[in-house]
């Protein structure tokens, strides 16, 4: 993937796509998903939508929960500390969601069900 050199607009090789040097591999979808979904700046507050608001069932299942088996096999125990995977925090997230929905409903005049 040499889009940079062909366009001439970008001086350096594109990130995440180093050549074929010893042991180097191109960025695959898994690496990209892991980074864009799990890392980077997270901003809450007055934001309209962000991932924190969304329960990522499939993604979490594929990215994280599936890894638990692998990790267990390897004797790694990170999942014990993963807030998403520990039941207590999941309950908090759910409660948070419920309360926010309730607030939103209350702020909407003439629509007070739920």
């Amino acid at each position, binding site marked *: 993937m040499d889009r940079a050199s062909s366009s001439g607009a970008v001086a350096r090789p594109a990130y995440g796509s180093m050549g074929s040097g010893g042991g180097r591999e191109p960025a695959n*979808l898994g690496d990209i*998903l892991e980074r864009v979904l799990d890392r980077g700046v997270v*901003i809450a507050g007055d934001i309209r939508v962000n991932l924190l608001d*969304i329960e990522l069932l499939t993604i979490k299942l594929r990215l994280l929960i599936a890894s638990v088996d692998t990790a267990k096999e390897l004797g790694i125990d990170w999942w014990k500390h993963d807030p998403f995977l520990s039941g207590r925090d999941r309950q908090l997230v759910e409660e948070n969601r419920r309360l926010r929905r309730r607030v939103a409903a209350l702020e909407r005049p003439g629509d007070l069900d739920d």
Partner: protein
Amino acid sequence: MTDAGSGSGEGFAEGEGFAVGGNFAEGEGFAAGEGEGTYLYAVARDPLPAPAGVAGAPVRTIAHAGLVAYVSTVPLERFGEEPLRRLLEDMDWLAETARAHHLVVDTVAALTTTAPVRLVTVYADDAQVADLLERRENDFLRLLEHVTGRREWGVKAYAVQPAEQEHPQQSAEAHAGRPGTAYLQRRRTSLRGREQARRQALQRADHIHRALAAVAAAGLRHRAQDPRLSGRDAPMLLNGAYLVDQERDAEFADLVATFGGDGVELRMTGPWAPYSFTVMEAT
């Protein structure tokens, strides 16, 4: 699973699809309309050309408080909370969106110090993004300073099949005439060997991580990827991210190269925008 932004040249033809410098400051336009939101990709200090973003939308910049936000206008019918809930479960849509997001971040990060923002961060309009830059100015500047002149490298270590240390001749002789015992003995030895190999491999991963982190400005371990994500059958022992001073790139790569072999295979990815080192506390 093919390589990352395999769309070589997408949106890069002779500056097409590039937008430089939103004239947001003039106050006209761009305050996203009813059904639109402002999608935020990254924050940097310089306005630079960027390729098209998610859903093919052109990317523009909002400059405020000495910072520059890279954004595009997105339809809320797809980027509102409810539609996203559904779309994010669609692996094809997710893959396409993640790649588009990454391409914008990657392009900007190749040219200037950049703080990547998490996928699907959508504001009501540009004014809200400008407000964010103003409120979090110091946080962003500190964060950008931390990653200036440094790049992120990924290092993964896999446990590959070690050569089985069996001595079939010996055991066969020792248990001549008692094939059942011989079998059990072999099996036990083999299990114990595997357990031991596993423990040694984990220790090596710890050691590798410590050594790499010592050369890097910062280093951290992410959870090991599942084989379905890594695309490899071999179990992953280490999924590390390292923020390395550019002058030490070669030193770092050389060090990585020294650790492979003997049941452990190392893979290096990068350079990445500093995704793993631009974590900012939410407020």
